[in-house]
């Protein structure tokens, strides 16, 4: 069993995320929203997210825990963004 932590951080007004199409209960205050997902064992999974905010604002998506650490900064080009990231649980 492994725990993977998902963090959305940055200037956004709305955000939502899912892993394998299961919504994540993102919690937190202000510009840092996070959720931890537990997996029964090793395997491939997919993180999806949707974020809105002011055009040009930046936000960062981070994965850590029982997977290769990953972090990437994105830009809300039109005040919105939707993305995905495949990851492997060890």
């Amino acid at each position, binding site marked *: 069993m492994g725990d993977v932590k998902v963090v959305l951080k940055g200037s956004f*007004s*709305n955000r939502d995320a899912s892993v394998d199409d299961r919504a994540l209960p993102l*919690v*937190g205050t*202000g510009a840092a929203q996070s959720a931890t997902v537990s997996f029964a064992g090793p395997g491939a999974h997919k993180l999806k997210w949707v974020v*809105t905010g*002011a055009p040009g604002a930046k936000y960062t998506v981070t994965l850590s825990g029982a997977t290769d650490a990953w972090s990437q900064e*994105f830009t809300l080009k039109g005040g919105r*963004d939707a993305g995905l*990231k495949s990851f492997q649980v060890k």
Partner: protein
Amino acid sequence: MSPRLGLLALFVTGLAPAVAAASDAVPSDSAAGEARLDPDSVGVPGFGVVFEGGAEEQRVSGRAALRYGAFALDGTLSGANVDTTTGRSVLFDSLDARPKGRVALGLTWTSFAIHDYADVLDQVEKLCEEQAAEEARAAEASLAEDEAYAEAKKNADARGLAGAEATKRAQDLAMALAAATTAVGEADRQEAEAVTRAKGALAEVERRSVEVGALAGAKDKERTKALADAERALAAARAAVAVATLDVTLAAERATRARLDVALAEARATEAARTLEFAKSAAESADLALEAERRRVLDLRPSGCAASTLTPEREARVVWPFHPTYIAALRGAVSSMRTEFFDPVTATKARESSHPWKMSVGVGTFLVPTMLLAATLSYGRTRVIGDASLLCEELPVETRVDGAGPFTTCGDITLGQPLWTQSTALRFEHRQYLTTGLSTNPSFTYSWSGEETGPFAPSQGAYRFEVPVYLRASLGAADDKALVVGAAYAHEGTWGAPQNETRDDVTLFFGGGFDIGAL
């Protein structure tokens, strides 16, 4: 997606929306949810308990909510702490006695949820795959033309060749070492055989010497012959000893040479092993350098993909459901209230249960990521009852059995039959989402009510201006706990009525919240 509770919160704050919808002349709720209980952008808390300490009355409300995607189902239980007529605490007794208590159920929908974007995510995923395949093809083509990559490949190939040669040399030396070791064994065996032979020849010499000595006492003729034979045999034996001794010496020399060969072979093998290890390390370094160069050229760093990382042409192909900086919200609430009243027409006391309801629709736009400008239009049926204090002033409701009276008393009862009225409200708010530090949520609501029959009179209504100010502190490593303290100032008044009335109120609230995770 499964149902989940988003946040378990304990808040001490103002009126719960559903209660306000049922009882207040000027509803104060927003279609987008209760700001004071809102733990994140457009959500509702998993559970909340609210308390209001105002200038005229105190009220305790408990609220729980269950989220399912864009929907939130919430329930509220509320009671007033102080009866304004008697001055005593009636808290939840008021659920039966006066219309201060409510149970309410509300359903809220907000437009921002990931399932609304499922189609967008599907589009982005396909476009990402398409872009990744195209980039891979272009990168592979550029790989062949990249000088640095070619140099790294040449170096890796050379290192690989050196490694192969070192391996072959190490194998040859290992074979030589094995042969030398075998030669040592053979030399040792030959030396042992030579020693054995020398020992045998020496023993023969000693035996012949004894024979020669024994013939000393024999007759002359026989003795002379035998002695000559014995001496020949002794000479032969001595010659054999000499030969055997020489063999031993030669065998020992061969063994020594063989051992020297082994030592030399071992030294060469050790050196070859070092060379091989170095060659392997160099080859691995060259391979890593080659892979790094390949990644540099192909840009193969592990990354996520989003609409914002697509090429402008591809990004333009994404069809979004609506402009993301706008949100929409719908809310429906029904409450239940039990009222005990005195009907002066029939001069009887009666009880009734009623179910006021309200529907709200709201739209909002984010001025900046943490500030929402929103408008909510609501309509509902409201149960209106008379003022309990009138009962004290105007009606004798009890006559003592001892015959005294009649006289006026202040009963805990409401005068007049409750009436259904309809209420419409328009609320404007500037919501600053709760972040660490100070935030506020000023709102202006205009409401007009009337009986269910008869014309509306929007020119005669009531207004409410409210300014809550919050101070929020984040707790926990993941900011998953929070404490909130705040105060709200409200000014209410009538508009266009024959007798305008105003009222000011100050509410203090405090609370906190923490995550209870997904179900």
